[in-house]
């Protein structure tokens, strides 16, 4: 019975990773850059909800809305100020180092505003835990909400990308930026939209993550951010279903590793997965193999 409960916890954590990984994978697919600051946008979302709900005492729904708006605006601002000027830089390292700088900046601004001590986050979920099999298997409300939210987001995003005009523009830009521009697609606008969607998803992930693990520090987002990137690579970077599968598998691996191998080694296990995946199949589970042309 404990195995099933670990499995469910793993799927729940994995859903959070999947939501974060979606942001990574979309941005990577379209802007060909690793947005290191993505994890810290999660943290900003967490603090936005914390301020609205715990400090100002307003209803959680409003908090979530504010978090989504704040993160979306932040994501677009970061893209405009820090990444866009470097889009045609001669070295691909330039934008990567800038992204690390942005990540650091967000952490330290949060540190100055909110301080280093851990804030206890009040869960925004009010559903009571589900008891199965005579109380041997307890599934918390947060777990249920996280899994459901994960499914809804994945379905909506897949529909958006495949059915809407803006989504098709995204696919086109990620395929070939130059050709997309010739077809009359607003490339800058599409990239900005991708950052906006990714950041909005990060806000949702932040709320879910902080509800499930109710402690909030300026560094909360960094580790889940990096692990979600691992998930995105695992599933095949640039692929939306890949991010979902990678996220959920990684969540399960982490929870089972914590439970059966060693709790201190959980992070090491997750990173070892990354190295193995990159060695065996660098394109990930669902990634496409792109030939490099001279």
């Amino acid at each position, binding site marked *: 019975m404990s195995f099933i409960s670990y499995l469910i916890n793993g799927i729940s954590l994995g859903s959070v990773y999947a939501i974060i990984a979606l942001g990574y994978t979309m941005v990577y697919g379209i802007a060909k850059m690793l947005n290191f600051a993505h994890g810290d946008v999660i943290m900003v979302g967490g603090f936005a909800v914390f301020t609205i709900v715990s400090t100002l005492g307003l209803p959680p729904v409003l908090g979530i809305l504010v978090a989504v708006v704040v993160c979306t605006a932040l994501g677009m601002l970061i893209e405009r100020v*820090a990444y866009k000027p470097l889009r045609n*830089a001669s070295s691909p390292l330039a934008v*990567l180092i800038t992204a690390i700088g942005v990540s*650091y900046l967000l952490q330290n601004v949060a540190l100055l505003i909110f301080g280093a001590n851990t804030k206890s986050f009040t869960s925004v979920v009010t559903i009571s835990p589900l008891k199965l099999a005579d109380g041997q298997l307890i599934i918390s409300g947060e777990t249920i909400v996280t899994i459901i939210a994960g499914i809804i987001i994945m379905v909506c995003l897949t529909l958006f990308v495949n059915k809407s005009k803006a989504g098709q523009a995204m696919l086109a830009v990620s395929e070939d930026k130059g050709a997309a521009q010739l077809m009359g697609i607003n490339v800058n606008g599409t990239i900005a939209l991708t950052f906006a969607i990714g950041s909005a998803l990060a806000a949702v992930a932040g709320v879910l993550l902080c509800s499930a693990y109710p402690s909030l520090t300026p560094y909360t987002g960094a580790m889940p951010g990096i692990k979600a990137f691992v998930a995105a690579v695992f599933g095949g970077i640039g692929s939306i279903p890949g991010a979902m599968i990678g996220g959920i598998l990684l969540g399960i691996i982490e929870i089972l590793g914590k439970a059966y191998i060693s709790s201190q080694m959980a992070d*090491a296990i997750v990173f070892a997965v990354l190295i193995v995946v990159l060695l065996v199949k660098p394109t990930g589970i669902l990634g496409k193999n792109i030939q490099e042309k001279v």
Partner: protein
Amino acid sequence: MKKMNITKTTKNNLITYLMVLLAYLAVQMLLLTGNISSLMKGLLVPLCIYVMLAISLNLTVGILGELSLGHAGFMCVGAFSGAFFSKCMDGLMPDSLRFLAALLIGAAVAGIFGILIGIPVLRLKGDYLAIVTLAFGEIIKNLVNVLYIGKDKNGFHFSMKDSISLHLDAEGQVIVNGAQGITGTPHDASFTIGIILIFISLFIILNLINSRDGRAIMSIRDNRIAAESIGINITKYKLMAFSISASIAGVAGVLYAHNLSTLTALPKNFGYNMSIMILVFVVLGGIGNIRGSIISAIILTLLPELLRGLSDYRMLIYAIVLIAMMLLNWSPKAIEWKEGLKRHSKKEKEVK
């Protein structure tokens, strides 16, 4: 013409060596006349460590052109292997010889790890390489924190659980104690040794850059496919640069371990943040510019200590410096603007 070129690089290198020598002499003068606070005295060895880390990371980032975010991991490997050796051999060998051996072992172990990590990782590029080196750094830190090694008459005992499961004799001694790390490493590090090590690292790196091998490495950075097409063995040269960089970081780690009585692997000293801090040194000093790395490592270490009031904002300033430097130096628009400025001033001179 050829002679001119040689003298230019040699002159440049000599300036770098001279700068380090002058800095050393200046500090020695201050030490002799007693014009140095105890706080600054305590900073001298860390300063040498940061300089070594910065120049070695610059070899990977600036010369090889790959972003490594696991530099602190190599430092960690070097620190623990060096300290482990010193702990085992304490009293069995003359102190200076033991420290020298510890430095060599730290360099060798970190270099071997560099090759081990490098073989699979250097097949990847850019973002992937950055994230895998980051992952490697975190794995090392995690592993060291659960590693227990003890020594008794029967030899060494290893465990990944706790110190009790080592099953040591009564006289057995726990050397590496998991999260508590290694305690009681002899205090061998000094400013002079640090400076000597900086000189050796500089000698290795500057000579590498100006050699045939160094030019091969830089050609890979500038255009991998073109380099491959003229018969440059990419894997070999990448590994060479990567493992030399790792070795020097390992030596810096040994120096670090022998400067403290307790060596533990915390996020603060061997984590991701440390790797980023070294990267900030490299970026501020100028990617690919070894002398710049030395200067920026010194300035960025001393500045927050001198301006005490700024210490809260230290990391914030680092972040802003990092973003501003990248935007100014790499954005095509900023480059255009700077060139326009240059042309403008040239024209003005001509008019005059």
